């Protein structure tokens, strides 16, 4: 991850395109592409009812991966990000019997995940690279163990059923509820996507790339690298919490599996699959991941892992920029 520490000019092309912030054409194209993707998602959700559920989960996971993308900008990989997702999900599961309102549960889940992110962040942002990744992994496994072992409260690995939910005071039918969750996920995805875009374009966001290339220079400029990273970390925890709340409200059942290291690995996988070049990448990656998984599982139920793994290998070998890298490369090719 930090091989190019002393050679910022050698950064991969797809990162540079965005990091340099070329105005106009690319921006408009990215916006158009995002709109197109959203329209396609709505069309698919309308045409194929069962995919609506899969896409809602994909959008939720995309939001969590958006948080990972922020840290990737700083050259840091968190192998424990699922802990924030699980925090959001379990918040919903625990509170739903008392407060059924989705519009209250969602901010609450985000708030708790943010607080956890702040507490954990104060500690982990002192570390870089493998130490950062492993500490996150360790802490997420602590959360996993707690969720699994505090059996009387969490019901262990069998998990908790999320009670019936209310949307702005009403209890819709199943079909409407699925649409509401899908719409909510889409809205949040767009909102967070724009937020991340603005953030990455701001001085704070630019400083993240500084951490990746050469941290010392950042400190010489009078910017605290730790503070920059902490801000990004807390923001990513917030998005993890929102994603977790969406996952819990959509699948309506939470298990400690959500905090297990494989779930964190899944998020990093999605980040790689989607590409770190744009705020659109995580959503492309998440949709790709979920669709490959469901189709692989439908086609060969016993070998879906093999197919998923092969796809990741192919992406790493032939398209290191991920899906976004492929798309943007093609778009630029056409524009030239």
């Amino acid at each position, binding site marked *: 991850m930090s091989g190019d520490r002393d050679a910022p000019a050698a950064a991969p092309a797809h990162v540079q395109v965005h990091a340099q912030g070329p105005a106009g054409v690319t921006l408009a194209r990215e916006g158009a592409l995002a709109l197109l993707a959203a329209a*396609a*998602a709505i*069309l*698919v959700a309308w*045409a*194929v*009812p*069962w*995919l609506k*559920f*899969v*896409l809602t*989960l994909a959008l939720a996971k995309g939001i969590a991966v958006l948080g990972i993308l922020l840290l990737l900008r700083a050259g840091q990989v968190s192998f424990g990000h699922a802990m924030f997702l699980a925090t959001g999900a379990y918040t919903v599961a625990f509170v739903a019997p008392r407060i059924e309102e989705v519009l209250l549960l969602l901010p609450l889940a985000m708030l708790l995940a943010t607080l956890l992110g702040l507490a954990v962040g104060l500690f982990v942002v002192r570390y870089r690279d493998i130490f950062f990744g492993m500490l996150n992994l360790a802490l997420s496994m602590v959360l996993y163990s707690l969720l*699994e*072992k505090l*059996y009387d409260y969490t*019901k*262990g*690995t*069998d*998990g908790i*059923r999320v009670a019936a939910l209310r949307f702005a005071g009403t209890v819709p039918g*199943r079909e409407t509820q699925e649409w509401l969750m899908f719409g909510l996920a889409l809205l949040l995805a767009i909102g967070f996507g724009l937020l991340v875009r603005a953030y990455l374009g701001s001085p704070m966001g630019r400083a993240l790339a500084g951490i990746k290339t050469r941290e010392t220079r950042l400190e010489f400029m009078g910017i605290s690298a730790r503070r920059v990273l902490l801000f990004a970390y807390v923001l990513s925890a917030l998005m993890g919490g929102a994603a977790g709340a969406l*996952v819990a409200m*959509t*699948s*309506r*059942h939470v*298990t400690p*599996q*959500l905090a297990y290291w494989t*779930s964190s690995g899944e998020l990093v996988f999605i980040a790689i699959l989607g590409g770190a070049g744009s705020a659109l990448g995580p959503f*492309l990656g998440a*949709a*790709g991941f*979920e*669709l*490959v*998984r*469901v*189709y692989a*599982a*439908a*086609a060969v*139920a*016993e070998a*879906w*892992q093999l197919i998923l793994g092969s*796809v990741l290998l192919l992406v790493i070998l032939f398209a290191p920029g991920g*899906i976004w890298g492929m798309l943007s490369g093609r778009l630029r090719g056409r524009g030239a």
Partner: protein
Amino acid sequence: MNDAITRRDALLGAAATAGSLLLAGGNARAQARPTELRIGITTFLSGAASVFGVPARQAAELLFEEINKAGGIAGLPVRAYFVDEAPGTDHLVGEYRRLVQNEGVYVVFASISSGSCLACTPLSDEMRKTTLLWDCGTQRIFEEGKHPYAFRTQGYGTPEVLAPLLYLLKHKPDFRTLAVINQDYAWGRDSWELWKAAMDALKPGVRVVAEMFPRFGAPDYSTEVTRLLAARPDVILSTSWGGDLVTLVRQASERRLFERSTFVLPVAEASMQVLGRTMPAGHVIGARGDHWNNHPQPKDPARLAKFVDAYRAKYNEYPIYPCHHMAQAISALQAGLGRAIQAKGGGWPNDLELANAFRGLTFDTPTSSITLREDGQGLEDQIVGLSSFNDRFPFAVPRDMIMFPAAMVSTPVGQKSVDWLKTLKPEMLAQVPAPIAG
């Protein structure tokens, strides 16, 4: 129908894919008589629990092949869609939707894992899809809520723990100390809670000298075995299963723990073939039901022999309990669908009519018959015995078997298992039937 989907389609969610799926999913809700009977089956095809999931799938394939040769169910050829439970519940509930909305399955057979069942059952209410819970054991399903479309075609945790306890109280009534070593996940904890509640009611004053919950999939039990050797409990309970149980029995028998303490292993049956002669004789073993290979008085001996022989011929091993549970779900479907068609005077039943036919249904299994109670729970007899060896099998089978009628060891409708177990009286032991030599 997914053969033609390329990577690009999948990645981009291309409109072409959506279109083809739209056409495929169009008649999912139609209640006209279909041309084939589609069944969605969720089972473990990967991970630790595939030791149950794969044999069950094999049993299903074997039986469906036979059924299709004989003209299908209700005259329709059967087509099964298998789904892997291993990726977790959020994936599984998506797959459940796919099975119902896209593949248009008529019935879903849900889940080995209790967590999967807990996630799928409420979905069966919402989607109004008859769901047979074919293997999961948690008592929470029907005790925490009503599920009009869900039916469990086998026993569950409470009878599967209570029967071995009653057997122990008959076989070794004077034990004074007990240790437990269960896997550290929901079933390990649940089963211990059930056992403890029943034991405290039926034989108060037993001292629990060790409660150990080694992690799921632990490769080494030397610490636990050492502790058990030092604690010298009269009885050691373990509801572990699969590879974990095999590892535990091997390591404990190497260090002669079986010579000091009596083991009670309620889920032993599925591991006996793997253990072979390593399994020590004279310990209490259960099978999550009555389907032992040496069942002393099966209801239909020819059917049991045919099933076991066909399975052995095809897969070169004896069927284990998940195979029987799968066979039970298939028998229940045959009986339930037949009953629904009869009730409709030969017409094709819709989802509600099908579900109603299962309530109170009695269907035959090779070894016995099972009745589905009004809450959806199946009443399956339990046979527990002492591990022993004979000339017929190269692995341990029970002797001195006691057959516990399901109604005796199951929580009555509307009560919670732990509360009910606490009300048991030691006089209950007088009702336990006499052992059968076997």
